[in-house]
């Protein structure tokens, strides 16, 4: 017998977790954000239940401000794999014209956090997989793999259920739910190495390419459609950029890069001097902002 490799161990742990949820939770769903972590999650779900299809649907919370390439990738992926892809948008938010330019953090709350809660309530999901990793942010580093939420979807960091060995407690009361993070113990580097090893398809935005961008508050923002609001002194330039994380295009900073192959991306990641979430504009707002949003029900 041989010792399993680092990636094999992480893969086995994630698959074990997914099967536990499928076996014990009443109505699970897998959150699908279209990003690279979601691509890995989807890939793991396909492997975990093979030859059976994953025994739960996938859910994308569409803020209507995602990159166009992300939406195309989502639809193509769902069709290619024959999986059930639910798409939910906060219609009141759209009606009220909530957008990332004028509404700041209220936008994230209404179009992401509230939309997610509405979707989970509407479908009655009791368990939701997310792709969060503990290496991303300090409050995530302390969250359990099975993260209990009360009927208001709130997380109580001071009273987390102990989580021992592989013995996950999935017991909840009506109205309560569990968020599950099978990638908790993966690092960004593990994700990229796994994508290479398994040849997982990811959104082309991760690869460097000439794209129309503006420089704003130290971030490189891509002009993905004509809804982009430009300041007087802002000029659209064509630059070779790529994205390390994906979200709503006006809130996602790119990096100038020549990395247009997977190996080049991994090479660049290994030498990264800026940790991943720096490119998400919202995390800068206040110290502890991620923890506060999680308590309010954000993933």
């Amino acid at each position, binding site marked *: 017998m041989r010792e399993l490799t680092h990636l094999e161990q992480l893969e*086995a742990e994630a698959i074990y977790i997914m099967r536990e949820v499928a*076996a014990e939770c009443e109505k699970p769903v897998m959150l699908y954000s279209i990003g690279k972590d979601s691509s890995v999650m989807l890939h793991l779900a396909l492997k*975990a239940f093979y030859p059976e299809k994953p025994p739960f649907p996938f859910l994308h919370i569409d803020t209507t401000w995602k990159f166009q390439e992300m939406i195309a990738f989502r639809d193509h992926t769902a069709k290619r794999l024959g999986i059930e892809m639910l798409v939910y948008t906060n219609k009141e938010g759209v009606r009220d014209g909530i957008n990332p330019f004028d509404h700041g953090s209220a936008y994230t709350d209404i179009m992401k956090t509230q939309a997610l809660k509405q979707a989970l309530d509407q479908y009655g999901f009791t368990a939701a997989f997310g792709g969060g990793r503990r290496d991303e942010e300090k409050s995530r*580093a302390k969250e359990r793999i099975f993260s209990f939420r009360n009927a208001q979807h709130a997380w109580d*960091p001071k009273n*987390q259920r102990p989580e*021992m060995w592989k013995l996950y407690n999935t017991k*909840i009361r009506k109205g309560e739910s569990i968020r599950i993070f099978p990638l908790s113990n993966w690092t960004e580097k593990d994700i990229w190495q796994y994508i290479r090893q398994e040849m997982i398809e990811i959104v082309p935005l991760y690869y460097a390419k000439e794209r129309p961008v503006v420089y704003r508050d130290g971030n490189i923002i891509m002009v993905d459609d004509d809804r982009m609001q430009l300041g007087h002194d802002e000029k659209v330039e064509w630059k070779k950029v790529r994205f390390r994380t994906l979200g709503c295009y006006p809130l996602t900073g790119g990096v100038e890069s020549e990395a247009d192959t997977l190996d080049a991306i991994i090479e660049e990641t290994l030498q990264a001097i800026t*940790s991943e979430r720096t490119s998400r504009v919202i995390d800068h707002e206040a*110290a502890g902002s991620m923890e506060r949003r999680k308590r309010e029900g954000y993933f």
Partner: protein
Amino acid sequence: MKSLLKFITCGSVDDGKSTLIGHMLYDAKLIFADQEKALELDSKIGSREGKIDYSLLLDGLMAEREQGITIDVAYRYFTTEKRSFIVADTPGHEEYTRNMAVGASFADVAVILIDATQGMLIQTRRHIRICSLMGIRHFVFAINKMDLVHYDKGIYNKIAKEVKRFVNEFEIASIQMIPVSATEGDNITGSSSAMPWYHGTTLLTYLENIEITGLNTEDGFVMAIQRVSRPNHRFRGFQGQISAGEVCVGDEITVLPSHEHAKVAEIYVTDQKEESAQAGQPVTIQLDREIDISRGCVICKSGSIKAANLLTAKMLWMDDESLVPGRNYWIKLGTRLLPASVMDIKYRIDVNSGDQLPAEQLYKNELAVCDIMLSEKCVVDAFENSKDLGSFIFVNRVTNMTSACGTVEHTLRRSDNLVWQETDITKQIRAEQKNQATKTIWFTGLSGSGKSTLANALEKRLVAMGKHTMLLDGDNIRMGLNRNLGFTEVDRVENIRRIAEVAKLMNDAGLIVLTAFISPYRKDRENARDIIGEDFFEVYVSTPLAECERRDVKGLYKKARKGEIPNFTGISSPYEAPLAPDLVIDTQKMDLEEAVTLMIEKLDMVDS
């Protein structure tokens, strides 16, 4: 590819755990530039006057930064030339012992910090004990704050000796002592010039090189079934992660607890069809014949593992509610979830001295050895043989809290002279065993108002929810227990009194009782409330007389109007409506389903 080492840092509060890890990451250049910047920024407003406070790298929660302590486990990930690491940095406060245990269950190696100015503390001893309980067999002791004792060799030697004496009683595969200073960085990643008398390894070198051996000595093939996959009628695969050993296509396997045999027909390792698979891999296995296998069964090759419903185990209690022997919990063991009770707390373990102390109950953060009874036989092994089949958690059946964790020492047979601890089985224990809170739901109202119909419908809903109930009505009371009573005032009072006493007994048995009697007099119902106590829940079925008379299901009103029935409530005898019932239901205003849903809500029985 590099191997992965999971380790935990622990020790008493202020021993400098977070600082140690922070410093290791910083020295080894394993933190990102922006984190480094944030760290220096945070330090300026912190208490170390502009010097870098390395612990800020790890104490992530707002409450922790405010209080300056570590509440919960933080996981950190780093890689050196030689190895990948996951470190669980755990809280030192006794209050958060359970979070420390979470980190220990995950780790292969424990780095125990000891403050050189203080020596071993109770909390240090508690942590060593819990690490051992959770399965850690490799220990490294970092004697910290050596800078504060002038790097004195004598002080180090004295503490090292104390540690060796203490760990003697535990199963340990390897032990290492290192004198360090977490704030100054001595012997963390590089050798210390301040302690030329120490010739041993630095902490990082130790972690890069330690070989892990220990638990899971079971070498035959063992796998607990997580899930049965049936995508179509031709495919039936058993999914799980192999706990130990290897399995090949064609191997003869045994299914436990049924002891049926079959041969392995196909193996999928994730989505790849393979000829064999080994410990640690997630697989889907198909067998050559149809046998009854479900989640919780175990398939294996050797015959040494057995099913049992009685076992002796070491437990760590983690709930604010204490453990009472006899009370029913969910136990999760392997992939099984079933009811279980502690029959006897054999002894509590003093965390400091290791002494065995008698105990009637077990409180938060206490360790004990207990005899446990499972509701049915379950495949189980000693923890020393199998981490997967020898570890378990207890879940509170009412609050769903993970109340305890434990490891199996050995199984017991009936003949092993079992004794139940002197326990009074209380009403609460009986009710919890049924996973419910007791109530007597007392329906009152005119004849024909709908009491029986409501009580019947409510009882059906409760039973469908898995509750244990009893309905008392004219049919089962008047014909038996109260056969000797007539309809005089004295008899009516006695009738109600007996019903209330029976309801109380049934509440004491842990049941939810429903009664459907006219019970027209306020005084009698008050009497019933006194007898039954706080379980009494009065439902006034307020359907008006005219409507009851219109319905006249049994033709009684017609007879009463003709004077054929004396003392008929509402016609020739008064009905005293309740002044402050717990609930009023007018059957004219809502349909049966709505009424039942309303009652379930008001009774607070909505969940589970």
